């Protein structure tokens, strides 16, 4: 990509993120029922969606590795999972701060809390597996298999668990706000929320792009070195 376009894009992203942060604290109103806590909404929700998105992309790269057996896909999967664990950790921390302020306890084993915690465990297990195996091709193959196996549990936690335990926790108050049709989210809140989602997604894909560039350059360098020898 043209260097100038990249710089302009980064500048716009910086401005957007600044606007989102300012908007979250000064511009947007409060959701009835949450009052001052609304502000966490703009950061916690995008981060947890991106943590899940990173996991999905990791599963995609794992499938590509198992199909084509090119090491580059495994390195992509590792990078996206590294980003994913960071976002999942941030989502868990912001979520538990919200829980303490809103429901009085840092951790309640509410279905959504359980899901994000399981995601953290899956990421942790993925990296433990990677560090326990030495050879690169075996590491890649087994890590890809584990990533896909763990993917099986994700539909369970996202779709089945909230349906089963709906009535046990006051989570529906938050769910109502996610439905844009209901009166929970006014125009300003919607604006800041979706801008925040967009800004975080662009940040995620931009960091992924940078990591991919580094991986590709490394591989190219390795190939040149191997050719010389």
């Amino acid at each position, binding site marked *: 990509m043209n260097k100038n376009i990249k710089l302009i894009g980064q500048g716009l992203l910086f401005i957007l993120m600044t606007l989102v942060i300012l908007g979250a604290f000064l511009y947007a109103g409060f959701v009835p029922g949450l009052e001052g806590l609304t502000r966490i909404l703009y950061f916690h929700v995008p981060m947890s969606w991106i943590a899940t998105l990173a996991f999905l992309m990791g599963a995609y790269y794992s499938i590509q590795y198992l199909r084509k057996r090119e090491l580059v896909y495994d390195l992509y999967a590792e990078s996206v999972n590294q980003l994913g664990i960071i976002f999942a950790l941030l989502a868990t921390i912001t979520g538990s701060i919200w829980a303490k302020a809103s429901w009085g306890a840092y951790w309640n084993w509410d279905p959504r809390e359980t899901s994000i915690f399981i995601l953290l*465990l899956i990421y*942790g297990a993925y990296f*433990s*597996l990677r560090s*326990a195996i030495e050879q690169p091709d075996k590491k890649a193959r087994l890590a890809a298999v*584990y990533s*896909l*196996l763990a993917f*099986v549990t994700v539909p*369970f936690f996202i779709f089945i668990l909230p349906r089963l335990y709906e009535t046990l926790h006051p989570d529906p108050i938050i769910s109502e706000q996610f439905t844009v049709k209901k009166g929970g989210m006014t125009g300003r809140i919607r604006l800041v929320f979706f801008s925040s989602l967009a800004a975080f997604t662009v940040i995620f894909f931009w960091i992924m792009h940078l990591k991919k560039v580094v991986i590709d350059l490394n591989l190219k360098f390795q190939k040149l070195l191997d050719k010389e020898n």
Partner: protein
Amino acid sequence: MHRILLVFLKDVKQELRSKAAINSILLFAIVTLTAVSFSIGTFTINEDILAALLWIIILFSSMSGFSHVFLKEEESHTADTLKLITQPNDVFMGKFIFNLVLLSVVVFIVVPLFIAVFNFEIHNILLFLLCLILGTISLSSGGTIVAALIAKASSRGALFSVLAFPILLPVLILGITITRIAFKEGQNVILVPEIQALFAYSVILITASILLFDFIWND
């Protein structure tokens, strides 16, 4: 079909000679049961907590014994022979059925002991049995595939628990919920939503394990 039976019988014969896996699982389960019962002493426990305790005992004792079935192959260097002779599918099904029988034996021994030690009454036996059967199948399937994953890794014991826990956690959650319903009185239903979810999860887990085992076994 015949080959699956052969792999299963081979593992059974090995197990009957050395009794490594059955000893470790059974002793772990009984020691845990003893420790819990002794430390609770004469206090009576709520049925909700009893359900949770039962599944914790089953989950952790199963995690201690599942990795034996693949470690045996690696240590005695017979894994390569097995790769030459059989298809990956036969190997997985044979070892899955072996782990299933192993866990069933343990559950068959531990559950009556549990009921006797804590002295309570199960009000919905059919639901409880169905929950145990489906739970055993899911645990064995998940445990076998993760055991295959770590068979060649270095720090096997801790790694197995770390890898297996996220995959087996839905079984734990659903099993405890269904067991709680079965322990309480007044509910003679069987097709609770959680049983449907457990059945669905078992099917998904077995299918995913069969599909993925090929990639682990052949390199």
